[in-house]
């Protein structure tokens, strides 16, 4: 529980609460045989969208939690009264008739809390749609896009030339890793023990047990 930076930070307790919320999304993913990654988008202290990985359900390897959450945010109707959808034809591709609660511009004012570091694809999605800050649990050395493999959040991942200091670009965003890292890693390990039933048969796997999480030597701030 104490693996993240413990400096006095007014956002810390809230960040923990939000992380717990997306842990729950991850739990749900685990029950539905999805790789357990969950996320929430927070705007001015309010969760406005949730997502969990849906790659197995959709047979679409790009349906990561971040896509699902952004879809939820951008399709939330402005009026919450459910009796609005009287017009049956409205489901047939005339979305302009219904006002949406949020415009995409809100994403630039949101913070994202996600159990695992966004992959390169999602890091680019966030960069193109806009985001203020990303808090993640476990880092992802296999295909992480906010420090794990590339730094898409900074200059779209361009590596600075020798002696060059990268200028801040308007689409750049802040990233902070290691939040509830142990919980996030355990969630993933439990999944890989139960196996991804949709993935091709692995060549060889030894005894599948959930190991403990090794403590982090230093915080992975980037």
């Amino acid at each position: 529980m104490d693996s993240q930076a413990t400096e006095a930070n007014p956002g810390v307790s809230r960040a923990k609460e939000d992380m717990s919320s997306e842990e729950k999304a991850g739990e749900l993913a685990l029950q539905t045989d999805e790789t357990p990654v969950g996320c929430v988008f927070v705007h001015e202290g309010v969760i406005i969208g949730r997502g969990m990985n849906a790659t197995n359900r959709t047979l679409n390897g790009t349906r990561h939690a971040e896509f699902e959450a952004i879809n939820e945010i951008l399709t939330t109707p402005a009026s919450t009264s459910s009796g609005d959808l009287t017009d049956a034809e409205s489901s047939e591709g005339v979305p302009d008739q219904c006002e949406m609660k949020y415009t995409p511009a809100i994403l630039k004012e949101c913070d994202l809390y996600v159990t695992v570091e966004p992959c390169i694809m999602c890091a680019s999605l966030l960069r193109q749609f806009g985001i203020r800050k990303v808090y993640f649990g476990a880092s992802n050395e296999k295909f992480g896009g906010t420090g794990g493999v590339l730094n898409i959040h900074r200059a779209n991942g361009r590596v600075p030339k020798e002696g060059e200091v990268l200028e801040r670009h308007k689409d750049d965003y802040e990233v902070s890793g290691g939040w509830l890292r142990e919980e996030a890693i355990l969630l993933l390990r439990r999944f890989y023990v139960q196996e991804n039933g949709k993935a091709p048969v692995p060549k060889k796997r030894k005894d599948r047990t959930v190991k403990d999480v090794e403590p982090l030597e230093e915080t992975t701030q980037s």
Partner: protein
Amino acid sequence: MSTNFDRKCSSPSREGGALRQSPVFSLSPLKTTLATQKHEATLRVYISTIPVKSASTILGRLRNAEIDNGLNLQHLRRFAKYTDVPEHVLSSIQAARRSLGLGPDVDASQELLLLVGGINSVSHEEVHYIISPTVTPVPICSIMVPLLAPTSHEQAVSWSSRFWPTVYKKSNPFGPHPSIISRAQEDIDGDARTWMELAIGAGQESRRLGHGEAIGVAVVERCDGQPRLLAVSGDARWLDWKYGSSGNVAGHAVLRSIAMVATAIKASENGNIDSTETACTATRSIFHDKPMISAEHGQSRASTSRYLCHGLEIYCSHEPCVMCSMAILHSRFGKVIFNKRMPETGGLSSEGVLAHGLFWRKELNWTLLAWEMSNSDASDETLGLEINA
């Protein structure tokens, strides 16, 4: 819209216009990040001399010493004859002999040169320890050698004459082996143009209808040499999108094609369920997974159940952005071919501004083959450099 667009939209058919030659497409494999960045990396290694008859003893002692952890120097000969090394290597070892008070005369038939290991993996003392039981004193010097294996016989010959005897083992440390690339290229060479023209055409239709930028994609399955079209998609970032910025990022053509393949797989797995039902059923969605424009309709279904887009070919009118490049990897495509390079936003190439070379990076969990398929028709409109295709 304008006749201008109509002219551009009419995809160049194979009959060809009498006045205007249809464009000639040519495939060139993309370079990997390693190939562009570590072209001729070198490493400093210790060498020494040993009696020919002690070679096997020394080999055993080297193995026990377990030096060069993690370094792969299989492309370099362990032992070399005096006649097989470049002049500067001989003078270095002669200097080492002189410093030990040894004469310049060597019986070249009774002695071998030995490559011990990288100077960062083994110390001078360790080299001495390994060799001293067979011969004393031990002349030791260091030379530069190529760090990575050569990618052709010619390169091996050149390196042998410049550094140290080097062997070409038909491997490519920088990426997929050249013979794999050329074989795969032969497979697609005959019809790649057809699919690329479909992709380009879909993009132009999308643009003409105001759905998105002039970016299009086609996905092809190849079974026993027989190609089959699985999906065609045009960009849809401006469809149902009244906001500015860069449009609906989830409407990029690559993502749409991937979703269409998923729909086809689902349909084939569930028997004959109407594809409109299996596609995104939510009334509103940022995903435009269903075919909309004429170019997108009438594709065959996935013939077999498959894991995602495993092994499929994807033809893109433009080099995909970072997001779409990684989406192609996540979907386990086998080949990606793009027409127009996007030098500032493209994620596949290892040369442009970003230089990510995502199609083949060892740290990622998937690699695939990638080609740039340029055409001679330079009159085509080009996208703004800042656009993410």
